[in-house]
């Protein structure tokens, strides 16, 4: 609420700055022209933009800094009050009561457990109103100071356009740096939490242990319950084996049919329809797997004489995931086949080979590097897929070859570990970040290698 008011106020001031500066620049311009002293170096509108930037940027910066600092100031003020002496001494309890009081201060109707929180809410509300006023005042001062500086710049020889464009370039650069910032943010947050985790559980136990049951992990030898091999196996089995057994033949054959046999009209219709498979949200696939595919597979397993088949099977999750990946494999194969020079195909046909012989003996081998890269990208997508396995694969960490057993994956466990009600910073929640780091590194390597292969493959035929 306050945030949007201040934002609007800053924008309004910027607008006012824009108009006043442009007006002033226009006046100056006419005066210069009337007295025969040439004209402004920049058009008046750029003086307006220059002014607006000088109003908005300092004001926004001031408000941002204040928004970060003021909660600390409010806390410090409230801590100085006599009521605060009643607060519990332990840091965690204190933080809990304070958190509740802050919530109450923001919304008087919210319920509370601790009467102390209700007592503190009043002072917090008062203090934050006071500091918000001070913040607004500081923001206004920043806006007017910036504006005053901007106003002094309206002179005949001032290169307003160059200055404004320099600002725009800075903005563009900052926006593109967001990508690097995100990458580093992912790496740093994963590495930091993983470091904390490895402080409690040795990396060897984690990477090479074969027993996974973080729920029972307590005390000295809890490292034994954090062996992630069953998760890695489940992930590879579902995402890289079962799903690929479905996706590679179907995706590859559809690509071959679409590129080599289908008439242009068929291709125009079939290709977008195939792409719809990729556009269906994964939660829908997950529901479909749990509602239809998994019971179907269970019934077949029971009919085949398996005792007490589990309703959540690796096979169900893997098959549905494979279907989801089909359009991905298909479009990668499509691109690679299209990149093979036409002369190779024509040469083979001219020698008397049939179309299918040409495809099998010439086109596919020539397109193989591209297809392999596509499969690698598909695997990286499959092992990072979450919702299908969460809804259909099960929670039991089994190290087995039987596709009808319930199996668990890295992504499933991340969800499981972080959506419980346990406190943060326990080895259990931290292990989720370690799993995330492993997943990130593996998908990164797959992607980088695949993109390299594709690039080299393209160059080979150019």
């Amino acid at each position, binding site marked *: 609420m306050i945030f949007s008011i201040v934002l609007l106020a800053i924008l309004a001031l910027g607008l006012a700055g824009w108009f006043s500066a442009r007006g002033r620049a226009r006046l100056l311009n006419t005066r210069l022209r009337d007295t025969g002293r040439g004209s402004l170096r920049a058009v008046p509108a750029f003086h307006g933009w220059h002014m607006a930037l000088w109003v908005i940027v300092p004001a926004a910066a001031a408000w941002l800094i204040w928004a970060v600092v003021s909660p600390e100031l409010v806390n410090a003020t409230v801590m100085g009050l006599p009521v605060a002496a009643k607060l519990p001494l332990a840091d965690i309890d204190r933080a809990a009561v304070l958190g509740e009081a802050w919530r109450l201060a923001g919304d008087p109707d919210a319920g509370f457990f601790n009467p102390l929180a209700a007592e503190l809410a009043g002072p917090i509300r008062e203090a934050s109103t006071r500091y918000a006023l001070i913040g607004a005042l500081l923001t206004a001062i920043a806006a007017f100071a910036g504006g005053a500086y901007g106003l002094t710049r309206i002179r005949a020889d001032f290169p307003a356009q160059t200055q404004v464009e320099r600002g725009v370039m800075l903005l563009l650069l900052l926006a593109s740096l967001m*990508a690097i910032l995100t*990458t580093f943010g992912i790496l740093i947050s994963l590495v930091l939490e993983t470091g904390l985790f490895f402080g409690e559980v040795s990396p060897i136990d984690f990477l090479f242990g074969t027993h996974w049951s973080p729920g029972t992990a307590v005390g000295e030898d809890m490292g034994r319950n954090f062996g992630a091999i069953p998760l890695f196996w489940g992930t590879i089995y579902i995402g890289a084996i079962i799903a690929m057994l479905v996706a590679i033949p*179907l995706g590859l*054959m559809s690509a071959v*049919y679409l590129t080599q046999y289908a008439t242009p009209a068929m291709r125009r219709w079939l290709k977008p329809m195939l792409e719809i498979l990729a556009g269906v*949200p994964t939660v829908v696939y997950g*529901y479909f797997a749990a509602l239809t595919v998994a019971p179907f597979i269970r019934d077949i397993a029971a009919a085949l004489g398996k005792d007490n088949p589990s309703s959540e099977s690796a096979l169900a999750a893997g098959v549905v995931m494979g279907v989801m990946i089909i359009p991905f494999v298909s479009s990668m194969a499509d691109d690679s086949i299209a990149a093979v020079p036409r002369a190779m195909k024509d040469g083979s046909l001219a020698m008397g080979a049939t*179309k299918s012989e040409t495809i099998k003996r010439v086109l596919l081998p020539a397109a193989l590097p591209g297809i392999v890269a596509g499969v690698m990208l598909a695997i990286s997508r499959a092992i990072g897929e979450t919702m299908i396995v969460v809804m259909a694969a099960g929670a039991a960490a089994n190290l087995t070859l039987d596709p009808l057993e319930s199996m668990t994956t890295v992504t499933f466990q991340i*969800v499981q570990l972080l959506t419980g009600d346990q406190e943060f910073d326990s080895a259990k929640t931290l292990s989720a970040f370690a799993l995330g780091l492993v997943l990130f590194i593996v998908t990164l390597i797959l992607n*980088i290698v695949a993109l390299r292969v594709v690039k080299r493959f393209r160059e080979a035929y150019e």
Partner: protein
Amino acid sequence: MNNVWETEAMAKRIARRHGAERRFRAMGLIAIVLSMAFLVLLLVIMLKNGVTGLDWSFLSGSDSTDPDLAGVWGALKGSLLTMLVTLAVSFPMGVLAAIYLEEFAPKNRWTDMIEVSINNLAAVPSIIFGLLGLAVFINLLHLPRSSSLVGGLTLALMTMPVIVISGRNAIKAVPPSIRNAALAVGASPVQTVFHHVLPLALPGILTGTIIGMARALGETAPLLMIGMRAFVATPPEGVTDPASVLPMQIFLWSDEIDGGFVQNTSAAIIVLLVFLLAMNGLAIYLRNKFEVRW
């Protein structure tokens, strides 16, 4: 010479090769038909289970423990707010980054690093973005948990690379003659880009943005990480209120034991698919209407 072709062995051989040709062709067709059959089966089952549950009270209600009273409006509004945040953050950021990389970036190690990280971010599993959102927005910045603000910001980080990549392609497609003409009459490089290149590239950028937003709308895993799985019985009033989103509502209902929720889940899936179809249709329409072939 002709004798060789007319022998019985040759006739057999040719028949075998033609049989192989037909089989191969049939295999291709079967692969496509199988994939399509799966899609059709999925849609039919969802329609069969859900279409009877689609009525006004379902569309206007919020989550409830009673399957007959539960509705989808609360989640829909949460999705809407989340998408607004995502769009407001990722669109300007993505477009500006695309402009910089395509038009102004010098060729050096920094630019390469930016490019590599954008390409990799587009392929990072969505759940990793959830972990980032949890670590940065909730644990570090203490933004309200389970709100559409945090959800939208997390999805914005995920959508931005998609917008940058499609934006760069759209900007690349604008012919250099447009830039040269603007520069020749005295426009500065910044003016050239903002007055001439960007308007021409905008349809392409919008198409990419809509596709990225459609992906974000269907995303569940990262939102699970930042705790958007709370039971929310009142539609959110603002971006800081606890909210649910449509895919999350589907996930939560799919977990319910009460049989009545099967209908609700399927009906919610129909609503979600209709929205996605509309967005993709809009993207295709925009592309066909405004696409310029130079």
